[in-house]
């Protein structure tokens, strides 16, 4: 049958060339010591399988139980999950599975298992690669995937050279071992394959170590967040650098024809930033005022307004210090394109709008509130501003984002225009009374909305960017682990391991007996046969 039509019939033969190298058993006579026995058990494959299954099973818990600290309270947990599961979840820390002691203990045990297994087997694997067993027997050679034997008139010395050259021509590395009546030859390709599993194990350990380094807090990892308006400067305290948002590009249109507007979800948004290092005031490219709260219970503040005057603008409960800034670099930050500065990653996390909403009653009295709309859609302020109508009725007002509406631009398919709209409620004291009053019109800077005798207008809309500041000193180790793991996987799973064994035995009557056997990857019988036939042909054997 031609190679194309001949199907491979997978054999159930033991996986001799591809099997994991055996561990070295204790060489001392008698029973292994307690330490040796413990070491052997720690590195056992059955333990590995058991730990892997346990790891999988316990990991499921965190996907079924919301991972929220509030469930550490037995009362809250019981209310949420019932009288049986509630206390269990609270006491066993199922609300924080992946940081719990028992989960980490499992990972430590698994790491030990991987470590012991790697130490045990790497030595054997390296020896198999560097100093393979060349000596063989005729039955062993004949038992390979393809084999043949014949007599030759040539001497063993001539045949050895011919076989070596032939194997080298086919890309095999060759080793030979003479014995009393001849020579055994071993040709190999892809022998490094046996190192694949060990390399993968090492990569897993590297990833674990990287995760510990990055998450434990021991090496200065942290996470921070800041909202920076256009023109504003944020002091990233831990890395002591200043980040100014010079421009923020959002494909967001607030005014179209003065009455209506459309607001599409941004495809992408970019924060143009300038990063500064602090220098003494007056020594850098510009100065800013750094504000710190006077109360020792508050966190340090960020600031920041680029000051035009020598005098710091007065801010209650804050002290001011003038800081010089020297520009270090300019960059654009987008989602998936962070900026790394002083080993801290600046990630585009969100964006928003800031605006004032002013309610002017009939007497001209103004009530102003400032609203932040996160991602342009979610108000961050939940309280209502209040205004009083002429008849004494209190009206609460807030800003929201509404879709569609009479003034909406024509939507196409799924694209629904959105815009800031008012939500009005009747207040009863400080509480909302009844349902919100829906307003059809959108509120734009040039289009105030009237309700009764109150006019609502919107001020200038300023954009801000929301940046995450993250430092993870272990991430490079994790990436190294990934790369090493990729190498190990390619070696272990995709590099075929080919072996050819040739046993040349001198005959008493003259000439030599040549037995050739070949393996060419699992079940690749056709390839093995080709190698055997090629060698026989090169040696002139029939």
């Amino acid at each position, binding site marked *: 049958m031609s190679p194309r039509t001949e199907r491979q019939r997978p*054999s159930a033969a033991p996986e001799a060339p591809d099997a994991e190298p055996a561990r070295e058993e204790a060489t001392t006579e008698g029973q292994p010591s307690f330490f040796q026995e413990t070491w052997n058990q720690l590195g056992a*494959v059955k333990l590995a*399988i058991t730990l892997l299954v346990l790891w999988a099973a316990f990991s499921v818990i965190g996907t079924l139980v919301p991972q929220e600290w509030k469930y550490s309270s037995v009362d809250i947990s019981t209310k949420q999950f019932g009288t049986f599961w509630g206390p269990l979840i609270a006491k066993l820390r199922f609300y924080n599975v992946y940081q719990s002691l028992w989960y980490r203990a499992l990972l430590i045990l698994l790491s030990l298992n991987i470590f012991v297994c790697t130490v045990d087997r790497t030595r054997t694997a390296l020896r198999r690669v560097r100093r393979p067993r060349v000596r063989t027997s005729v039955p062993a050679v004949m038992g390979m995937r393809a084999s043949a034997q014949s007599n030759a008139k040539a001497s063993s010395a001539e045949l050895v050279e011919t076989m070596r050259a032939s194997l080298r021509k086919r890309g095999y590395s060759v080793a030979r071992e003479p014995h009393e009546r001849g020579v055994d030859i071993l040709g190999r390709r892809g022998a490094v394959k046996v190192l694949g599993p060990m390399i993968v194990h090492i990569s897993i350990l590297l990833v674990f170590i990287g995760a510990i380094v990055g998450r434990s807090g021991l090496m200065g990892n942290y996470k921070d967040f800041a909202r920076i308006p256009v023109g504003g400067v944020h002091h990233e305290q831990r890395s002591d650098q200043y980040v100014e948002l010079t421009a923020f590009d959002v494909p967001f249109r607030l005014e179209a024809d003065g009455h209506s507007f459309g607001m599409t*979800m941004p495809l992408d948004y970019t924060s143009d930033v300038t990063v500064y290092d602090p220098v003494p005031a007056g020594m850098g490219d510009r100065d800013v005022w750094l504000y710190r709260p006077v109360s020792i219970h508050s966190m340090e503040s960020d600031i920041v307004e680029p000051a035009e005057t020598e005098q710091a603008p007065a801010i209650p409960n804050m002290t001011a210090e003038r800081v010089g800034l020297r520009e270090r670099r300019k960059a654009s930050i987008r989602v998936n394109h962070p900026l790394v500065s002083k080993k801290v990653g600046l990630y585009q996390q969100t964006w928003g709008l800031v605006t004032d909403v002013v309610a002017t009653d009939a007497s001209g009295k103004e009530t102003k509130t400032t609203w932040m709309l996160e991602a342009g859609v979610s108000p961050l302020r939940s309280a209502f501003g209040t205004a009083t109508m002429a008849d004494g009725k209190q009206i609460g007002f807030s800003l929201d984002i509404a879709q569609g509406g009479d003034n909406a631009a024509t939507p196409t398919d799924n694209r629904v225009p959105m815009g800031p709209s008012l939500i009005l409620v009747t207040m009863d004291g400080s509480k909302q009374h009844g349902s919100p009053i829906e307003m059809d019109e959108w509120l734009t800077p040039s289009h105030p909305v009237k309700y009764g005798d109150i006019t609502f207008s919107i001020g200038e809309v300023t954009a801000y960017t929301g940046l995450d500041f993250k430092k*993870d000193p272990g991430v490079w180790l994790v990436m190294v682990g990934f790369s090493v*793991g990729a190498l190990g996987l390619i070696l272990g*799973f995709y590099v075929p391991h080919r072996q050819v064994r040739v046993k040349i035995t001198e005959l008493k009557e003259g000439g030599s007996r040549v037995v050739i056997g070949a393996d060419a990857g699992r079940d690749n019988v056709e390839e093995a046969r080709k190698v055997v036939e090629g060698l026989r042909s090169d040696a002139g054997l029939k």
Partner: protein
Amino acid sequence: MDHATLHSIEMLGLRGAFAALVISAVLYGATYYFRASKALPRAGAAFAVLSLVALVAILFARAFQADEVRIPLTSLFEFSVCFVMGIVLAFLVASLKWNLRPLAPPILVVATAVYWLGLRGYQEVEPTIMAALHSYWRNIHILTAMLSYGPLAVAFVTGLMALRQYRVEAAGKAPVPVSDGEEPPLTADQLDEITYRIIAFSFPWLTALIVTGAIWAESAWGTWWAWDPKEVWSMITWIIYAAYLHTRLVRKWKGMTSSAVAVGGFALVLFTWIGVNWIAKVFKVEGLHTYGQ
């Protein structure tokens, strides 16, 4: 090409892929009764290839319907198209190496079922996608999923057949007589070996799926691992297949035990794909991977 034409192509591809998968399964199934026929399996393979063409047409049509041309791999339905492509490709390639003809009907039934599940989540093309999805890692990530999940589906069927065959052989039943020119059916050990070979091919791609996701998450969110339910379930799937590979080293656990693990592993693949969304709804466990819905 205008939107209407592209939409028509997409609809044609949707129906054509389904029909081709079903016809292919039927043709292969007919070989149970017409064992000597060579035309039937060839026709079955032709329709399997046709289903691939239809699936590619779906992706092509969707790629050009968005506001900006993009490889359409952002929704559950779009991923299911890739998933089915992976299954059919894996089956066709594996058929060149082994006699998987008797297993073709169940494999194609699995492909059809995955396709049907994906159709249930069908959505029109979104004109725009969120910023986090604007990354070439998305395409690499989905490609690795296709190259891992597809073959694992085939391994699921071969593993299931191995388990069945082990029971048949253990019961001492006589093998089905084979006519001249026909290949004898695969034994349980051979099916087990094929299952192993397929999983051994898929496992590095399954690892790459997690790794590419982690690298993408690091560039998008600054966190390469967030214990998100989707991430955790993909990790669980990887763990179980790693355990499967280790069972091959324990002599007593080769055979039935390892085949059972291979079958169970695919259940986890399906759960990672669609079950996680259900968990989020029922157990209200929030995650970062809601964009696929």
